[in-house]
Every structure is written in structure tokens, then in C-alpha cells.
């Protein structure tokens, strides 16, 4: 198993009496793209800010590359690229801003790679950033995060404000980073993106990490929905099987969500004359909503 790049143990942040995150145990391994999912206010940004030492944990620990995020923050951030969820930039020219970042990082940036990033994102860096649209500001943030080819990328909603073509470019950049063996911590609530690029996903709700699983496994274990067409109306009591949830029932048409006991269900309804069966695939988004639909014991 690859060594952990990010490791939190019992990470807890309280804002006064209000909880940010609670007892988060998280491990992100080298070379993986880890999706961090959750709705607004779930604790995604709080976790990332602790990793960057913008805020300090109330209790617990957070480490990157085996170093403590608070005490070794400078050494850690030397190897980290970050796009904040609410990106704010100074008013200066984008080129001057990027130059400043390069100098602060000790000039460990390939100018040709920086130029290629700007070209791929179609970013004109000669203008002052206060004149930029939201999308162009986001592009500056992406170039700033990627240009030094950091060992770890912490991306908070990186495609926010971008048009679909540029969104795809960003996802390509994430894939290229992974191909280079670099690690990406990808926070998002756009599940199709997470599904497209992430190896594993962590789901956070109300400040608690409720599930960490491989995207592949999550999708493989996802709930299945069946749409059945019968040749006669089906009595509701026939559909009452543990592990089967009726989503729609319209006389001879039924849609059910199957968690278990599919064989028992089919045995009960088969005598009604099944004319057609259609399997409805759930997207990661629907799986995600299923987790959020119930309590943590639902997982």
C-alpha cells in the first residue's frame, strides 16, 4: 500500500460552540485522486483549511507527507498547490501575480509548462485580475495551483465558474497529475466530476466523515432500480418484501429499489406475468443522495 500523503486522526474543529468537523480520520494515499464529497456546510472547506494551516484544529491531528500541518506548514505548502472554494485574487496583472507566486516558491516552476497551462485554459495573463470574469479568475487559480507541479493538489470546487470545455481541461489536468504519480484531494459536490477522475471518495456530512470507499466499489454496490411491466394489475401487498422499496406503482407498472431479497421478490411477483424488465442504473449522484437521505446508519 502506498504511504499516506494526507492523514488526519480525530480531527475536530469547533467554531466557538458550533461544530465544523468532528473526529475525522482520513487517509489519502500517494498517487491517488481522492474525492471529498459533501453538501455546502458539511465540513469540506474546514478540513482543507486545517490541512493548509489557515485554521487550527480544536483537537486531533492533521499531517501531510508525514509532517504536522501546523508546525511544518511552510515545508508542506512548498509541495502543495491549492485552489480555494471561494477564490479571491488581488487586483494586479495576472502575469505579475503568477511571477510573485513563482518567486515565493523559490522559482521551482517550468516557464514552458506555465505557458502551456495558460494556452490550454485560454487565459490572457496581461490583464489586471480585477477586470476578469469569475471564470478567468478561476483559470488564474488553476494555473497558480498546477504550474509548479506540486506533489499534492488540494482542489476545492476547481471547475466552479468554468464553461464545460474548460471544465474538461481541468479534469484532464487532474488525470495528468495522477499519471505523474502526484496526489489530488478533490473536493466537489459535482458528482459526475468525482466519478470521472477519482479513485476513492470520502463522504462528509454534518462535519463527520461517514463513508470512505473506492468509487468503483461504491458504484458496484450501489442500489439497483428495476422497472417491471406486468400483464395485469399488481396488488400492493405482493410488493411488500424486506429490502425492496417501491418507488412507483401504477397498476401494472412498478419501479422498485432493490437492496436485498431480489430472488424472494421475483418469486412473489412472477405469477402476475412479467412482460418486461428494465434495470435502471443509479449514478454516483443518486448513490450519494441515498447516503444523505437517511442517518449514518443508512450507510
Amino acid at each position, binding site marked *: 500500500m502506498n504511504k499516506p500523503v494526507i492523514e488526519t486522526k480525530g480531527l*475536530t*474543529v*469547533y*467554531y*466557538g*460552540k458550533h*461544530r465544523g468537523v*468532528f473526529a475525522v480520520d482520513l487517509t489519502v494515499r500517494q498517487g491517488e485522486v481522492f474525492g471529498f464529497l459533501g453538501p455546502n456546510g458539511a465540513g469540506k472547506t474546514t478540513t482543507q*483549511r486545517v490541512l*493548509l*494551516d*489557515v*485554521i*487550527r484544529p*480544536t*483537537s486531533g491531528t492533521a499531517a501531510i507527507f508525514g509532517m504536522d500541518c501546523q508546525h511544518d*506548514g*511552510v*515545508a508542506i*505548502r*512548498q509541495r*502543495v498547490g*491549492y485552489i*480555494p472554494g*471561494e*477564490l*479571491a*485574487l*488581488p*487586483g*494586479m496583472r495576472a502575469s*505579475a*501575480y503568477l*511571477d*510573485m*507566486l513563482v*518567486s*515565493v*516558491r*523559490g522559482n521551482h516552476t517550468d516557464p514552458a509548462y506555465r505557458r502551456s497551462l495558460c494556452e490550454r485554459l485560454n487565459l490572457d495573463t496581461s490583464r489586471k485580475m480585477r477586470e476578469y470574469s469569475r471564470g478567468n479568475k478561476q483559470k488564474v*487559480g488553476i494555473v497558480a495551483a498546477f504550474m509548479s507541479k506540486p506533489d499534492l493538489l488540494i482542489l476545492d470546487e476547481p471547475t466552479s465558474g468554468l464553461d464545460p470545455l474548460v471544465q474538461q481541461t481541468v479534469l484532464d489536468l487532474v488525470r495528468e497529475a495522477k499519471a505523474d504519480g502526484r496526489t489530488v484531494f478533490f473536493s466537489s459536490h459535482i458528482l459526475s466530476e468525482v466519478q470521472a477522475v477519482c479513485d476513492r471518495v470520502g463522504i462528509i456530512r454534518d462535519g463527520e466523515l461517514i463513508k470512505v470507499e473506492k468509487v468503483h466499489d461504491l458504484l458496484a454496490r450501489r442500489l439497483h432500480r428495476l422497472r417491471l411491466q406486468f400483464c395485469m394489475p399488481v396488488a400492493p401487498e405482493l410488493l411488500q418484501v424486506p429490502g425492496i422499496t417501491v418507488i412507483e406503482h401504477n397498476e401494472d407498472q412498478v419501479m422498485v429499489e432493490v437492496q436485498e431479497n431480489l430472488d424472494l421478490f421475483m418469486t412473489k411477483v412472477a405469477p402476475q406475468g412479467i412482460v418486461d424488465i428494465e434495470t435502471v442504473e443509479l449514478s454516483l449522484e443518486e448513490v450519494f443522495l441515498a447516503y444523505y437521505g437517511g442517518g449514518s446508519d443508512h450507510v
Partner: protein
Amino acid sequence: MFNLIVAELKKRVTAVIGWGVGIGAYLAMIVAMSPDLAPQFANLDLSAIPIYKAFGITENFLSIANLVAIYVSFLGLTIAIYAVITGTSALAGEEEDGTLETLMSLPLARWQIVLAKVVAIAIALLVVLLIAYLGYLAVFPSVKADLEGEITLAELFWSTLESWPLAMMFAMLSLFMGAYLPRRNHALGVGLTVLIGGYLFNNLAEQAGPLKDLRPFFPFYYNLGGKVLTEGVDLGKVGVLVAAAAIFAVLAFLSFQRRDVTVGTWPWSRLLAKSAVQTQE
């Protein structure tokens, strides 16, 4: 670090030019008008007029130097207002704008970020005063004959520069408040209250016997303003302001070192957080 300081200075270019030109125009106007104004004020008993008293103007304009000295004293008040604004913007303002979070994601220690801002503020305040001094240079030749023998350009230069320690003290106080209090408005409120309240108290207390002894507790007591033109520089008072600025800068370093940036909570919220965690556990 050097590039960070340059970037901090670039952020302030427009404000520095604006404040410098504005204050410079005021200083130019005072010097230009003083030869004509002085005779008109000569026979007035200013100590009997409350508004003059509140602004510390109690002596009659016996000379052109005296008149310039009195009006130049407003320079300290004006530059201190800019100092409070730029001091609160540096950390608290950028925290609220969101740019501080981006800056903190770079491989910089927190003390480096604060140091870059302290240096940039110090230079910015100095440049505002130097631009303002150009106001004297613009009009001095035309009124030189009337001022000759009483005020020199060198004296005007030192009287302008003498406001820098006072401005630094207010800037560092505001920087500290920005790092200590939850929001920029809180820091701005404290800075402006100390500034305006302290200015008025210092001037009024000078006339009121029982309160006079309290003046050393207020910053403007240590600011000579235009009196440099008539009484010379008091290095002791300048030293007090520089020391106060240094203390506030250190407090800003310490407060920012402990701050949860982007959170905007009161300093004691960390204690509440600890007890909340214990309750949860």
C-alpha cells in the same frame, strides 16, 4: 520575501498617491495663504472660541511660522486616518476579501506575511508624507519672500516627516486589532475611536487642569506636529511613538500566529470550542 513586499506595495499605490496628493494640496494651500491670513488672525483671541480650542488652537497667530505650525498640526490627524485604514485592511480586510487565504496557501510562515505587511505599510506612509511634502515645494518659491527668515524648506520637511512615527503607531495598532478582533469593522472602530477620541481629548485636556495629567496616555501628546517649526524635534516623544508602534507590531505578530483565519471569531471562542469538544466527547 522581497517580491511579497513589492506586491504589498503595489496594492497600495493608488491609495498612497491619492492621500499624498490630497494632503499635499492642503499643505500647499496653508503655506500659500499664510502671508495673507496671518494679519487677519493677529487680533483674535482664539482661546475663547470653542471650536479652535477643541482642535488645540489656542495661541494667537503672532507670526507666519506660528500660523503654519498650527495648521500643519492637522497633518498628523490626516495621515493617521489613512494609517488606520491601511492597518485594518492589511490583515482583517484581506481576510474578509478572501485574498489572505490564497496568500496563506503559499510556503510562507505567518510571521513573514505580517512582516511584509509591516514593511509595506511603513514605506507607504513614508511615501504619502514625501508626496505631501511636494505640496510645500510647489508653492514655496512664490511665497518665499514673505516667509524668509521664519520658515525654511528643511524645517517644513522635518515637520512633515515628524508625523510618520504617529502614523506608524496608529497603523500598527490597527494591524494588531485586525489580527485580534473578529472583523475588520471592529478593528476600524477601535482604531478610529482611539484616533479621534484621543485627538480631541488631548487638545481639550491641555486647557483643563485636572485632565492635563492624563495627556501622556494619549498618542497625540507625543506628536509635535507643526510645533517642530517653532520648538524643534523632541526625540524623547518620537521614541515613545516608535516604541508603541513596535509593541503593537509584535502584538500583531503574536495574535496572527494564533488566529483561525477566515473564521472571524472572538479570541475567547477557542476556549468555548475546547469545552464544547469535551462536552461532545
